[in-house]
């Protein structure tokens, strides 16, 4: 069975993006995206869990029967998240202090169960790992874009506290875009998350529609030139 890795990449990052197309994982999405840095941290942690759970499910896919698959997947995911939480607390303590609040939230991310169910349970280890990576990166992209939008409009900064997450070397990312900005509270609060997400979804639809129209026009032009 050959796997179209290019298709997987495109699906994960854009065409079938967890947030922008599947509209999954909205709970952690809206909870953490008040800033771009939080979005990045949550996205990376989720990517790790997606890959680990996808790989585990793919390895055991021949043993798991349809009747009990959901409880088994939930067990696998919850175990991985808890183990990751403990390991990070023990060995990357500084990162855990920043992300600690969000790690348990990963369990509530239905995208992970969704990928285990719809992809990893039917695929070999390699494609399942790769799909987890691409879906995770797509989710990270959505979190960072939404976080950046809300942070810029809500507090006038971008990647504030990035050095806490990535280390001092990345402090250049921390920008204050609008000096003496008093903030726009609505955008920082959860309703602002819904609003910002709505605008981003509309923007993506519009972009997709325009791309489709352009592709159609090109196909027509080619057909006209040939006749």
């Amino acid at each position, binding site marked *: 069975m050959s796997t179209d890795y290019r298709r997987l990449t495109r699906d994960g990052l854009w065409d079938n993006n967890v947030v922008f197309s599947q509209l999954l994982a909205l709970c952690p999405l809206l909870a*953490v995206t*008040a*800033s771009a840095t*939080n979005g990045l941290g949550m996205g990376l942690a989720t990517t790790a869990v997606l890959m680990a759970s996808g790989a585990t499910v793919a390895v055991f*896919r021949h*043993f*798991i*029967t*349809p*009747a*009990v*698959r959901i*409880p*088994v997947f939930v*067990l*696998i995911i*919850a*175990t991985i998240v*808890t*183990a990751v939480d*403990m*390991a990070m*607390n*023990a*060995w990357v*303590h500084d990162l855990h202090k920043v992300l600690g*609040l*969000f790690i348990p939230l990963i369990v509530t991310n239905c995208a992970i169960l969704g990928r285990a169910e719809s992809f990893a*349970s*039917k695929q070999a280890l390699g494609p399942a790992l790769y799909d987890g990576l691409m879906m995770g990166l797509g989710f990270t992209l959505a979190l960072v874009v939404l976080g950046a939008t809300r942070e810029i409009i809500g507090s006038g900064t971008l990647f504030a*506290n990035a050095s*806490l997450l990535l280390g001092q070397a990345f402090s250049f990312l921390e920008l204050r875009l609008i000096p003496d900005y008093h*903030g726009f*509270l609505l955008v*920082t*609060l959860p309703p602002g998350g819904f609003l910002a997400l709505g605008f981003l979804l509309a923007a993506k639809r519009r972009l997709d529609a325009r791309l489709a129209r352009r592709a159609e026009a090109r196909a027509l032009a080619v057909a006209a030139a040939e006749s």
Partner: protein
Amino acid sequence: MTTPLEPSYRQRAGYQAGLLGGFATMAAVLLVMSNLITREPIEARRREDLMASLVQVIPPALHDNDLLADTLTVPVDGSQRVIYRAVRDHAITALAYQVTANGYAGDIDVLMGVDPQGEILGVRVLSHAETPGLGDKIETAKGDWIRGFEKLSLDNTPDAAWAVKKDGGRFDQFSGATITPRGVVAAVHLGLEFFQANRARLLALEVPIAISTKGTTP
């Protein structure tokens, strides 16, 4: 998953139950193992964090003892409160103890340092689950708000001022998060009242602590 030719033994309830039980056992074993492996590093990190926080609420110049070793346990409202005592030249120079505030999302553990006159040396948040970006400004990493407690005492700040500005007090609330600072202010206020009520007991040095053997035994 949806293989049409499912072997018949897989249809039995026993297989399903065994499968689920097997995975549950595996998960339990994995979790117990990770707990065993990570327990000590996590405990060590917790102590490092506590020490790092203690250093911030009790200036190192104030003591020559091991803060984590010289502790006193006082029963408060049915639970035990650990008091860390800074001792220099056989006199108590500062106390630190943990108080718990009611936050927006569960308890906030707050460590406060107090000098023998009841003046606050410093306040730091040890752990909390407040909303990132809103309530987490109580951390020193995210804001200077918590430093506003320094040098305050029950003597120089009237009871009515121990509240956020919205409630007529002297402390700023955060935009979008009033419950968090309100809880912290109330907890620190209670912490000072605890000190005042137990002052004599807390500052008594005759309790056998490590420092009392210094200089007396060769």
